């Protein structure tokens, strides 16, 4: 592990939460806008409500470990968002948090494995897979890019940058897809040509992982 890389501790997860909350706040209207033509125009408001609640809960009584922090964020999303994204993102983070275990810090490899467990949890709960035009189309490429970068010896910051790029490309790649899950699927062929709001918010959450690491390194 490079000396310039931050420790993956509770503090890191809190920085991630702050960066994610700020990004959701900033992009909230855009997410709702994306949810209008192929959804019900609430994804920005949903995500904002969830991350505001999670930030408040974590700020009030910050858990000690990265795993417990992530799990708390997940529970808050489940308890405050509603909609499809609440249980799905909630499950992503609860599963990932549980997979991180009880240690005060984790390794980049452990983070990657935990994220993969979380994403699998989403697919399982949502009975969905890659190509359905959902958040999975940003999440799967992100964990895969993260894994390969780490495998090929990249440092954490570089690997998270690769994950971010993969997530953003994954979100854009949903444009030509026809939706097979979620509300957009009701539109059939009319869902083609629009970017999935959940894939877009997923890319924001992945980007925040890098921001939190970069800030830690500075």
């Amino acid at each position, binding site marked *: 592990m490079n000396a310039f890389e931050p420790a993956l501790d509770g503090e890191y997860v809190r920085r991630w939460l702050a960066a994610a909350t700020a990004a959701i706040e900033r992009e909230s209207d855009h997410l709702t806008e994306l949810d209008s033509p192929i959804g019900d*125009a609430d994804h920005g408001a949903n995500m904002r409500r969830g991350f505001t609640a999670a930030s408040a809960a974590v700020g009030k009584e910050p858990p000690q470990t990265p795993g417990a922090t992530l799990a708390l964020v997940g529970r808050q999303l489940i308890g405050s968002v509603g*909609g499809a994204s*609440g249980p799905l993102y909630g499950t992503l983070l609860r599963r990932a948090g549980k997979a991180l275990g009880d240690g005060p810090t984790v390794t980049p490899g452990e983070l990657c494995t935990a994220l993969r467990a979380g994403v699998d949890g989403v697919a399982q709960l949502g009975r969905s897979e890659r190509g359905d035009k959902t958040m999975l189309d940003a999440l799967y490429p992100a964990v895969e890019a993260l894994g390969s970068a780490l495998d090929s010896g990249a440092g954490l910051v570089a690997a998270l940058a690769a994950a971010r790029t993969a997530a953003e490309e994954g979100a854009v790649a949903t444009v030509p897809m026809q939706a097979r899950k979620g509300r957009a699927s009701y539109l059939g062929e009319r869902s083609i040509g629009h970017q999935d709001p959940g894939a877009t918010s997923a890319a924001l959450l992945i980007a925040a992982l890098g921001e939190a690491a970069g800030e830690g390194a500075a």
Partner: protein
Amino acid sequence: MLINVPETVVPDALRGIAAAHPELNVDVATRVVVRREAPVEGKVGLVSGGGSGHEPLHAGFVGRGMLDAACPGEVFTSPVPDQMTRAAAAVDSGAGVLFIIKNYTGDVLNFEMAAELAEDEGVQVATVVVNDDVAVTDSLYTAGRRGTGGTLFVEKLAGAAAEEGAPLDRVAMIARQVNERCRSFGVALSACTTPAKGSPTFDLPPGELELGIGIHGEPGRERRAMMTSHEIADVAVEALVEDLRPDGPVLALVNGMGATPLLELYGFNAEVHRALGERGVPVVRTLVGNYVTSLDMAGCSVTICEADEDLLRLWDAPVRTPALRWGC
């Protein structure tokens, strides 16, 4: 919009429901609306819920002979599991609870989580997923058919069975049977405006309409040039009858999406009756009004529910809720 701020629309409405309906227990903070007498000794409890914006569904259907509790989410956003777990605890008399869930990914996921939590707390939970909307056809490549107007029939008929003292498995069986016998089709003449967004959810130029819409302001399967009430009834009824192929009488719900005047809706009802009659389908009961709405959307939906004598008796049984009331 007639609101204070978008953020408080749901709790504001709950305070207004509490003020208008002393026969309901409204917990504004936790967002659960419960029939005052709940839990009713020995009776199966019926809990439904979903995004707000479809009023009177569901809170308007809480009361004797229908729901025991309703859990309203944010506008067009399913409620969170906590609400349903609380509602289940509040209405369970030991006879168990039926969750009535409209088939949307969010509703299904949140209710499933709530069912798990409630069972952990010792409440026996059965679930029925309502999916009556024929506009969504290809279920292998979609999230499945949506739950729309059929929900009213499931809540009324299963509610009447529960009120008669039927046990949980029978109430759940009736609910599923009713869902199987219900079909709906919706049409939008305008989009709706959510408080959070403040502008129409989609662009629909005057002189065009959307066929096969849901109840969340999403566009439909197809856009067409404006049609007459006569033509719309033919398209809707044809889709329903072809899919359900009823061989007995039906209950009909001619439903307004929110902004269509009752004057127009009654005119449309005449066309729906004509269209059903031309296809040999007798209508034994008709409900015309705004029951399963989409905020201020102009448009309508038609639901038919094939009803044997048993279901007809359950339909005619007394009901006493803010939005549906007869016999008491």
